[in-house]
């Protein structure tokens, strides 16, 4: 299992001036985008239209942030995203651990068929499910609810997580479980006390992948939630943009974008390492 492709690398390589130039250009562009976003978020809507995008705000309008938070409801959207992502990810990790362990360790009739169903589910694009899921959620009165979204996300992420965890469980030595059994631990105790703690690294990687997918999910959130008190950030920003297109109220939109961008960037800066190893694992999605 690759721990981190970027940090584990020790290689004798020669430097090249082009390298520095290319990386700097790319990095500079991204930094400029961020500066532009921040500076624009402190301008008034008329000022945004009238002045150069590089001109600093005449007087910084911190009020934009307060407006985005209350009028633009960014606070609600942020909370919805955090709640939906946290609960879905936790549920996926728990359920994925259970099914991953059984697929890796227990021989029962129909196992291969069931495994094939999990695998096939990974290949079905979300579009093939969006209409019937809309129908199903509406039948169960779960449209416009966070519960509905969470259920859909858990089902959506479960196959990949199970798949990654199954292959991880297969790499764990059987001897540990056997000696625990000899000491008198029941199967479920062995799972809880011995196996689960050992899957820590795989669970972290799966956690990163799940959080990224769920936080970013757009189609289902767009379709199954039409009520602005339940919007996730992804849909909230999109709707805010639609509103801004009609009303030319750019100030709130830009402040809203900063609100939705800054927290994830800060979290990302802290967890960069986990992030890249998580993505490398998630590549198994296929």
């Amino acid at each position, binding site marked *: 299992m690759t721990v981190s492709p970027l940090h584990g690398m020790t290689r004798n390589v020669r430097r090249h001036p082009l390298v520095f130039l290319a990386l700097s250009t790319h990095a500079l562009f991204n930094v400029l985008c961020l500066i532009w976003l921040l500076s624009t978020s402190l301008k008034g809507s008329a000022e945004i239209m009238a*002045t150069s995008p590089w001109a600093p705000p005449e007087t910084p309008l911190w009020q934009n942030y307060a407006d985005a938070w209350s009028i633009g409801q960014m606070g609600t959207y942020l909370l919805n995203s955090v709640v939906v992502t946290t609960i879905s990810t936790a549920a996926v990790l728990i359920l994925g651990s*259970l099914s991953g362990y059984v697929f890796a360790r227990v021989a029962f009739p129909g196992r291969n068929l069931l495994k094939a169903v999990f695998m096939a*589910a990974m290949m079905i694009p979300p579009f093939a*499910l969006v209409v*019937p899921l809309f129908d199903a959620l509406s039948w169960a009165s779960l449209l416009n609810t966070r519960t509905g979204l969470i259920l859909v996300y858990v089902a959506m992420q479960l196959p990949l997580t199970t798949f990654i965890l199954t292959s991880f469980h297969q790499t764990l030595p059987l001897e540990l479980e056997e000696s625990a059994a000899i000491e008198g631990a029941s199967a479920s105790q062995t799972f809880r006390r011995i196996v689960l703690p050992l899957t820590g690294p795989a669970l972290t990687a799966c956690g990163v992948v799940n959080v990224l997918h769920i936080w970013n999910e757009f189609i289902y959130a767009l379709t199954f939630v039409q009520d602005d008190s339940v919007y996730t950030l992804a849909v909230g920003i999109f709707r805010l943009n639609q509103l801004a297109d009609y009303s030319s109220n750019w100030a709130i939109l830009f402040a809203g974008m900063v609100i939705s961008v800054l927290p994830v960037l800060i979290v*990302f800066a802290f967890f960069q390492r986990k992030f890249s190893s998580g*993505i490398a*694992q998630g590549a198994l999605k296929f």
Partner: protein
Amino acid sequence: MNNVDRQRRRLALPFLALPCVLLGALFVFPFVQSISMSMTDWFGTFQTTNWVGLQNYRDLIADDLFRSAVLNTLLYFGLSLVVLFPMALFIAWALLRTKRSRSFFQLAIFAPAVLSVSVAGVLWKFIYNPNFGIINTVLEAVGLEALTRPWLGDPSTAMLGIVIAVIWHGIATWIILILAGMDRIPTELNEAASLDGASNWQVYTRVTLPLLWPVLSTLLVLWFIQSMQTFAFIYVMTNGGPYGSTEVMATYMYRMAFEGRMFAYGSAMAIVMTIIVLVISLIGSRMLRSDRFDS
């Protein structure tokens, strides 16, 4: 079968019950429903629904708009392929050659990947904005006024504009995957080539790239599968316009199903997309089996 196995076997039912119920109710059943729906004329809640067999699929073949959506999807795939892979390979190569400032570059280059797709899409909509966007003002500043245009409002540049935004947002993932692939190439090979007097470029093109090919071909399949389903950026940035120049299969399907209430027709389209993805996945998983990434 020993005692441990028997004990473990008792876990199967309680452990698998909930995952199976969820997957059955929210994956398997809806998928089957989607297939059967695609063979009806379901038009929304209050209509009677009739079985029409493969009629929707026949209509699809005759639908000019669907055909142009397919072509646009392929255009999206082709354009992004030409930009994404060379750029990701180059940045991966470059990142390996920085020492002191690597973590800064990584942070700056990978950061967009954590932004929500719709946030990234909206951001780029403004970067391209003809009045206060960055692109046009930069072009004006360097004396290239002739090139300025409403990037997303011009059918000839809209798709390219979207592709650039998608790559900006997603390139980190591909760089990480390429790096993970490079990580598995034995260091000695590169070093040996270096010692034999090969230049950086020669090592890269003659040693690294050929050894990386199995990984790259897998990533290629992965990108194709993702391209076939591309939706969010297009929906957010142009919604298929201008004049249908960025209408892809997914946006067309979504429009038909949820704006036109043509659920059956939309389902037929979704099934066609699924078949394409499945066929390519199966071909791809062959490659994956002979060349598994890790674990």
